[in-house]
Structure formats: structure tokens, C-alpha cells
């Protein structure tokens, strides 16, 4: 059996049914083996999109996403996707073709040191050095990708190995860093701190999705009565509509969430990492709080904020142990709930333009239980986080750590392949959309019913907003008023499209999104001057939020 056939067999034995990729010279033996393998290959139109699609597939299923690319430019085009998965802790295996071993190190055609280039953005990587070890490498790569804190693993496969006959397959393959059990001493300390607190707050992050600890979080919150704020990736970890959920915190967080964090006396961080977009000025973040930090990755505990009670280890186990209701929590709950009600977003913005937050709220209110929303990066991404509701962290997909414009559409493609019956909506902006616009061809090719909501403000809105606020309105390279006609672009790819240019067209558009069977692009013209509020300016603490009227 040839190396490429062994690769197919190993992928099938890992339960892989779908891979995303793009062929080329050095990976041709693998594509040859794919012809007869029981694996569906999805051809994207750029390798970056293959990586994002594999990530979308992985995020929505919790399984390992797989992408393929050839050597040289094919491999380098995966890098942004790998970095995105690395920063957002998504399990992936990327397989790159490499020139044959005798040519490696000779600057051969399409040779690049992808093993070296990718090293800082993968959890681990391999250059396959013998066909006999190939199956074991694949097995190990999958274990590493999904174990502990998940992440991407790269396998660089030289062409001669893909073509070589295997004689004595090596069956090595170890176990890798399962998340440790939390220590009883630390758990007891955390219980005591919760019991003694008067103004406790849960700060919930993406680690809850990774640990599959949504039920445990809900049980903990309901047993203790402690209000919750979430990070971007914590959205959906507890239902948006839960009474104790104060919403997202941080730079574009809700006022209720940020003010409560600044006031609390105990911050229980659960699978969150004190990212700078969350904390604002770090040494003024939650200034009155002692910190209990639960995380599956010991490397995150006390990385940026020293935990008074570090609890590295399985989040589920920890949460289940901490069901202790603070003695006098009712006044604090009342304060936070009052604040939540009084400072809630409003949707009665004046003007003629479609108001993006109102559009997104309506879109979300009409959702079906199986709706998934993916985002690109920028103002629309923050509006989705602020104004859409989510009942599961797997129904909201946003490029959080890396902030990759162009992520949304290919991620939606990956989601739709994983869940063919789901309503998958890619919310994008006119800047982000153009970064992977070629994937409209993939939608058409596979007739995927992905719905694209393109919020068009004819500019790079988030950059423009910062230039307005922090660079004295010196607008530099943010004008996109020469955008193409997006409806015509979609139609040129064979995709249905409609324009929404006034508020009275919104209901029809939303109905069509949920009713139409095939792919659809809804081009929504919004106010080019609209900005995202509130906003914590850089270098400030989270109580110093700007609102439209104060900016």
C-alpha cells in the first residue's frame, strides 16, 4: 500500500468524513488516493478558505477539522487559518504536500520550509520521515489536536513518501496531556472564597465550549445565584436570555457587564484568559476583586492577572464542586439586575438608513433552534456579539484571538457541511467580505444554503471609528465607496441576491433568509457614519466607556 493510501486509511480510522483543500504538484499523490477514498473532499478556491472551513467544521461539531494543501504557496496560504485556530484553540490537522526528500533543502520548485514557518502557530508539527511511520504520525496528530487545550497540528508530507510502498508500519502513538483533575485544596479554597463573597461575578470564556461544560456552568450559576459576564467566545456558554447573564464584557461590552466587573469583590474566571480586549487597562481591571481562576490550560492561570486562588484542571469537575451560595448575595443580584434593565440596548435610532443593531436583533429574534451565525471581523462582528442572542457557544462563530477578516464565509461553509440541515448565516462587512469573496464559487459549486448578510457601510468601519476617535478624524485608507455592486457580484457567481436599502425592506429580507432554500446574499446598506457603542478607549479601564453622545 502506498503512503497516500495509508494516509486515507488513517484519516478514515480517525473518523474523518470531510476534508477541505486545494490540489497542487507535491500533494498530487494524495489527491490521487482521494479519488477512491470514502472521504468527501471540498474544493475551496483558496487554501486560506480551506483552513477556515475546516475550523468552522471543527467548531460546530467539536471534532477535528482537516485541510489539505500543496507545498510552497499552498502551504503558506494555510498559515492565517492555522494561526486563527491556534489562538482560538480549535482542533485541526493540516496536511501539506512537500517536495520529495532528495529535493528538500535545495530551493526546489514550490519548496518552502512550512514546518519552520508554521511552528509558532501550531500546537505541534511533523515532517514525515518514513512511510512506515505515516499512520502513527496521523494517529498522534489527531490525539494532540484534540487533547488538553485543543489546537492545530501540521503534517508535512514529502511527495516521495506519499508514493512509497509501506512494508512494516510503525504503530507508535502515545497519550497526550489530558486536562488534569483540579486539586482538592484549591477547590476548597475557592469554595470558601465564594461563600465569603458579597459581590461575586462569573467571567465565562471560550474554555467552557472547549470543555463542553455548558450544563455545569448553568448548574453552578443557578445553585449559587452569581451573575455572569461572558467574553466573545463565552457567548452562548450560558443562554443570552438567562436572567443572570449580563452580556459581554470588555472593549465593546455592555455597560451592565463592565460596571459589574469593576465593582465585584470576587471574580470567578472560567475558561477565560484576561485578554487585553477584555480587561482594558490590566492593572485597573476588576480592582476590588480577588480572583478564582478555573482553566483547563495551566499556562493561562496567572499569566496576566495573578489568581488569588488558581484552579487549573477540568472545568466541569471544578464547577460541580463549587455549588455554594454566598450568604448575602441578594443585594448584589438586585444591583446587577437593575443595571441590566436600565442600561439595556435600545433600537429606536433615528434616521433613514437601516440600523444595523436593529437588523441583527430582528434576525436573531427570528432564529430557529439550529441557526448558526458566523462573523467576519470589524464593526459588524461586535454588533453580532452585542445584539444577537445565542443558546449555545457552538451557534456563534467569531474570529476572536486573531481577528481574521475573511473568516466568516469559509467558516460558514465548513459549518454547513457539518450540519447540512442547519440555518447557517454568515454576517459580514464590505471590507471583510472581499477578503474571501472567491468562496461564493464554493457555495455555488456545492449548492450550500449559506445565507450571507453583508452589512455595507462603504468603509473599513472599525478602523474609521478609531481614526475618528483617536486620530483626530484623519481618515486614512478607509473609504470603500468604490465597492463593487455586491448584488451583481453574487449573481455573477450564480447566487441569488437582494438589496436592502431602507428600513421597510428589513422584514422581507429576514423572512427570505429563513425561508429560501439555496444560498442567498442580502446586501444591507447601512449608515456609513454608524459606530459601535459603548467603547472602552485603549489604555483606559472598563468603567470609562464612551457612548455615541459622549464621543
Amino acid at each position, binding site marked *: 500500500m502506498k503512503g497516500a493510501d495509508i494516509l486515507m486509511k488513517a484519516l478514515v480510522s480517525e473518523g474523518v468524513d470531510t476534508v477541505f483543500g486545494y490540489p497542487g504538484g507535491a500533494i498530487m499523490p494524495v489527491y490521487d488516493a482521494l479519488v477512491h477514498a470514502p472521504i468527501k473532499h471540498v474544493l475551496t478556491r483558496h487554501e486560506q478558505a480551506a483552513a477556515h472551513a475546516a475550523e468552522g467544521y471543527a467548531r460546530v461539531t467539536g471534532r477535528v477539522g482537516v485541510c489539505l494543501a500543496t507545498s510552497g504557496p499552498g502551504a503558506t496560504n494555510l498559515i492565517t487559518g492555522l494561526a486563527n485556530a491556534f489562538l482560538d484553540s480549535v482542533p485541526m490537522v493540516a496536511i501539506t504536500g512537500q517536495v520529495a526528500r532528495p529535493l528538500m533543502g535545495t530551493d526546489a520548485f514550490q519548496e518552502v520550509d512550512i514546518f*519552520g514557518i508554521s511552528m509558532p502557530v501550531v500546537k*505541534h508539527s511533523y*515532517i514525515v520521515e518514513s512511510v512506515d511511520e505515516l499512520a502513527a504520525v496521523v494517529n498522534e496528530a489527531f490525539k494532540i489536536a484534540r487533547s488538553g487545550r485543543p489546537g492545530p497540528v501540521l503534517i508535512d508530507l514529502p511527495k516521495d513518501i506519499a508514493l512509497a510502498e509501506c512494508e512494516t508500519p510503525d504503530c507508535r502513538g502515545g497519550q497526550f496531556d489530558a486536562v488534569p483533575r483540579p486539586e482538592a485544596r484549591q477547590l476548597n479554597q475557592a469554595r470558601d472564597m465564594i461563600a465569603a463573597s458579597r459581590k461575586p461575578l462569573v467571567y465565562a470564556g471560550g474554555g467552557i465550549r472547549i470543555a463542553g461544560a455548558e450544563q455545569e456552568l448553568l448548574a453552578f450559576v443557578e445553585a449559587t445565584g452569581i451573575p455572569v459576564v461572558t467574553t466573545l467566545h463565552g457567548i452562548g456558554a450560558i443562554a443570552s436570555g438567562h436572567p443572570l447573564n449580563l452580556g459581554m464584557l470588555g472593549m465593546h461590552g455592555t455597560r451592565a457587564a463592565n460596571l459589574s466587573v469593576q465593582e465585584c469583590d470576587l471574580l470567578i474566571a472560567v475558561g477565560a484568559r484576561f485578554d487585553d480586549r477584555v480587561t482594558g487597562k490590566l492593572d485597573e481591571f476588576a480592582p476590588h476583586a480577588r480572583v478564582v481562576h478555573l482553566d483547563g490550560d*495551566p499556562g493561562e492561570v*496567572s499569566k496576566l*492577572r495573578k489568581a488569588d486562588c488558581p484552579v487549573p484542571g477540568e472545568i466541569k469537575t471544578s464547577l460541580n464542586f463549587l455549588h455554594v451560595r454566598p450568604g448575602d448575595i441578594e443585594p448584589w443580584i438586585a444591583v446587577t439586575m437593575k443595571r441590566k434593565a436600565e442600561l439595556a440596548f435600545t433600537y429606536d435610532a433615528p434616521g433613514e438608513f437601516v440600523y444595523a443593531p436593529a437588523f441583527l436583533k430582528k434576525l436573531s429574534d427570528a432564529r430557529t433552534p439550529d441557526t448558526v451565525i458566523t462573523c467576519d471581523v470589524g464593526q459588524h462582528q461586535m454588533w453580532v456579539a452585542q445584539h444577537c442572542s445565542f443558546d449555545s457557544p457552538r451557534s456563534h462563530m467569531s474570529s476572536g484571538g486573531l481577528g481574521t477578516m475573511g473568516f466568516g464565509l469559509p467558516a460558514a461553509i465548513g459549518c454547513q457541511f457539518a450540519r447540512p440541515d442547519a440555518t447557517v448565516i454568515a454576517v459580514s462587512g464590505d471590507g471583510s467580505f472581499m477578503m474571501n469573496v472567491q468562496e461564493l464559487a464554493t457555495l455555488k459549486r456545492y449548492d450550500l444554503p449559506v445565507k450571507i448578510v453583508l452589512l455595507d457601510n462603504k468603509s473599513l468601519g472599525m478602523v474609521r471609528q478609531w481614526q475618528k476617535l483617536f486620530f483626530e478624524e484623519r481618515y486614512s485608507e478607509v473609504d470603500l465607496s468604490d465597492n463593487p455592486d455586491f448584488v451583481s457580484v453574487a449573481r455573477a457567481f450564480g447566487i441569488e441576491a437582494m438589496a436592502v436599502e431602507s428600513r421597510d425592506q428589513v422584514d422581507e429580507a429576514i423572512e427570505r433568509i429563513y425561508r429560501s432554500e439555496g444560498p442567498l446574499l442580502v446586501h444591507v446598506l447601512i449608515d456609513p457614519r454608524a459606530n459601535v457603542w459603548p467603547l472602552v478607549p485603549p489604555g483606559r479601564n472598563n468603567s470609562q466607556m464612551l457612548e455615541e453622545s459622549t464621543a
Partner: protein
Amino acid sequence: MRYILDMSIHNRTGALERILGRLRQRQFSICSLTADCPVAGMMTARITVESSRDPELAVKQMDKLIDVERVDLERLEGEEHDVFQSQKTTAEYCRPV
């Protein structure tokens, strides 16, 4: 401040490179390095690093690497310092020991 990381490593392709890259990216400058392969497949490395960051962070980052089997920390000089005070890192290259 300077610290010594004493490590036992599975000597697979790129193992040492991965360690050095991770230390650099996490703002630990390398002052000295000795490495040896006492038995086939294994490497021992003794790396002196300098950083204003908490050395425990370097240990945790090394622990995360698949190739690293064991890492011990020796404090060369200086006193216990607070993570909060270590946000500012120097960009200066370390002088040879």
C-alpha cells in the same frame, strides 16, 4: 532576572527549535545554552534565560510543548517578584554570561 531551565526533551525533528522559538516569543531572552544527547532519542538542555516576566510562565509554556518531557527551574539571582510588576519587558538583548 536570570533563570536556568533544565530540560529533558524528546529529540524529534524541530524539538530544540520549537523550545527556543517559544521562549523568544514569550519574551525570554536566551543567554546561554548547552545541549547533549546522552541516549538515542533524548536530549538534555540547560538554558539560561533572562526576562522581567515570571519564570513560572516559561516553565508552563515549556510544559505545553509535546517534545518536552521534564522542565526544572533554577533561580540564578534576584528575588521573588510580582506578575503585576512584570508587564514591562526589556527589548535589550542579553549580554553573554
